[in-house]
């Protein structure tokens, strides 16, 4: 993971423990404070336990830091079941002595309080668990349960304070989860005792669209973003979407792939797109964006590659039928399984969910080529900034996996080409399609707005959809023709 490398220098200042949660380590500059407690607060069902569990399991599996999970709410069996779907095998980790789950059950009705006491029993249990596997990470989920189980709040508060200090002395990186309070960060004011790092998780529904957000309220000794970061709970767990983070260390494959159209290949230095690059096809309605995408998909499938086509406007049948009319037959690829369509209206669910779906399907299908047709439809479900963040994230993800990505983008008639969500800087090859009117005839024109790392044509070419396929040729503009050709 890249954040580890990036923060190596800063580690000397304030040691941190990587969470291994995608995005989280980037916004915290390397994870949670090492050897100190972190408070994770949020309302019920916003992912506190999951966050804590991932911190622990990732520590045990990836960073050689065994962990103890003290659960006050669910027993070991329940916890194991809950996270089994994420691929976490708690039983195996327990057997390997990398993880201990200690279920602390407190039953108010069973307990009578008769005189002075302390919580040494808890300390001893925790200490025993930590020492028996050399734990470096500890989770207390959710220790507030004690407030309803014990009536002597004075003792409890003093003991919790002692506990957090004791954890610090033990040098373990602890995550303490807590319920969100009304007007306070936590219901029982635990933030008073955990001063090093406080993270707030939130889950809200806006216009019937649910979004999860994470905010770092406080992180002593570290610069941190104060923004709210949207996060997802996917099949693989939590994934934070840092808007500002763009990994720029993607491998840049030098291989080239045909666009599916000979003439277009020629315009792109004779070889077509770069493999693993991001391609944008922008244009007004009816200029043939989807056709160009289909030609590329067809060519990719014929090369034996796998393609995933996200269509936000047309059904699979419709696309196949339309493409057949211009001589592109996609149905054999679908039957063979090398081409998979995913059709969903953008308004069907929130941006977050789209991102999840895209991630999931890419993981399942393992495509070489991904098409998103069109990305502009996302504006129906999110603000400009949100859409940009999500697209950035998608492009990032595709690049990291060296998947060639083709996006189509709808532009209004007569607007400049740059209307595309501000993602243009992330795009490697940008092809613009336009309707041109000339002498009472409408013509489709195509030109390459930019194409990084290759010599490319500067000409506007004509672009025709015929029943024999896509034809790109010289623009028939009589008088202006010579001028354009010499450009």
């Amino acid at each position: 993971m890249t954040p580890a490398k990036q923060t190596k220098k800063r580690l000397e200042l304030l040691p941190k423990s990587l969470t291994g949660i995608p995005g989280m380590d980037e916004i915290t500059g390397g994870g949670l404070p090492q050897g100190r407690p972190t408070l994770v607060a949020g309302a019920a069902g916003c992912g506190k336990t999951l966050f804590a569990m991932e911190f622990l399991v990732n520590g045990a599996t990836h960073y050689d830091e065994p962990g103890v999970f003290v659960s006050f709410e669910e027993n070991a069996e329940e916890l194991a079941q809950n996270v089994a779907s994420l691929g976490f095998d708690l039983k195996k980790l327990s057997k390997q002595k990398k993880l201990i789950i200690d279920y602390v059950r407190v039953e108010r009705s069973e307990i009578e309080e008769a005189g002075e006491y302390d919580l040494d029993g808890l300390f001893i249990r925790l200490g025993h668990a930590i020492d028996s596997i050399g734990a470096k990470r500890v989770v207390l989920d959710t220790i507030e349960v004690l407030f309803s189980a014990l009536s002597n709040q004075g003792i409890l508060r003093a003991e919790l304070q002692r506990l957090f200090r004791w954890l610090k002395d033990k040098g373990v990186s602890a995550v303490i989860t807590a319920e969100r309070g009304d007007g306070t960060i936590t219901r029982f004011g635990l933030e008073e005792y955990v001063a090093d790092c406080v993270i707030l998780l939130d889950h809200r529904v806006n216009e019937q669209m649910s979004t999860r957000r994470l905010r770092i309220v406080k992180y002593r000794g570290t610069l941190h973003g104060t923004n709210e970061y949207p996060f997802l709970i996917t099949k693989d767990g939590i994934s934070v979407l840092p808007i500002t983070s763009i990994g720029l260390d993607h491998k840049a494959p030098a291989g080239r792939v045909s666009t599916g159209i000979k003439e277009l290949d020629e315009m792109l230095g004779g070889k077509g797109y770069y493999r693993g690059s991001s391609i944008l096809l922008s244009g007004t309605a009816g200029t043939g964006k989807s056709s160009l995408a289909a030609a590329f998909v067809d060519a990719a499938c014929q090369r034996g590659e796998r393609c995933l086509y996200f269509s936000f406007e047309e059904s699979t049948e419709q696309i196949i039928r339309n493409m057949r009319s211009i001589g592109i037959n996609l149905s054999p690829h679908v039957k063979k399984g090398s081409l998979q369509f995913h059709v969903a209206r953008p308004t069907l669910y929130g941006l977050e969910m789209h991102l999840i779906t895209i991630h999931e399907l890419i993981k399942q299908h393992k495509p070489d080529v991904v098409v998103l047709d069109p990305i502009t439809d996302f504006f129906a479900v999110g603000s400009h900034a949100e859409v940009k963040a999500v697209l950035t994230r998608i492009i990032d993800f595709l690049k990291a996996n060296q998947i060639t990505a083709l996006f189509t983008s709808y532009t209004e008639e007569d607007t400049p080409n740059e209307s595309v969500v501000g993602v243009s800087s992330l795009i490697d090859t940008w092809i613009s399609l336009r309707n041109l009117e000339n002498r009472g005839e409408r013509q489709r024109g195509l030109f390459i707005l930019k194409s990084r790392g290759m010599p490319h044509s500067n000409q506007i070419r004509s672009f025709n959809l015929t029943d024999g396929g896509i034809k790109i040729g010289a623009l028939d503009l009589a008088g202006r023709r010579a001028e354009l050709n010499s450009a």
Partner: protein
Amino acid sequence: MEKSKPRARSRPTEKIWELRLYVAGQTPKSLAAFANLKKICEEHLAGQYHIEVIDLLKKPQLASGDQILAIPTLVRKLPAPIRKIIGDLSDTERVLVGLNLREQK
């Protein structure tokens, strides 16, 4: 681990109080709890009780079995159901309620 044996032979028809006192070292609270418990038992359960003292500093692994958090904790194993009384047992009334020797008011 110290054990105080029942003073009188228990007859099978009689109820036996199986008590387990969890402590952590010889702290004033632990010592007080043991002394208070002993006194209460002698007064109310003479010949019918059995106290086992478990020092968690010596046997920390025993803390999870009876779900011990607070120290001292007295666990009434028998008669069922299991009850826990936490604290130094200085509040005799509450101890008696916890041991089921007095109706809860």
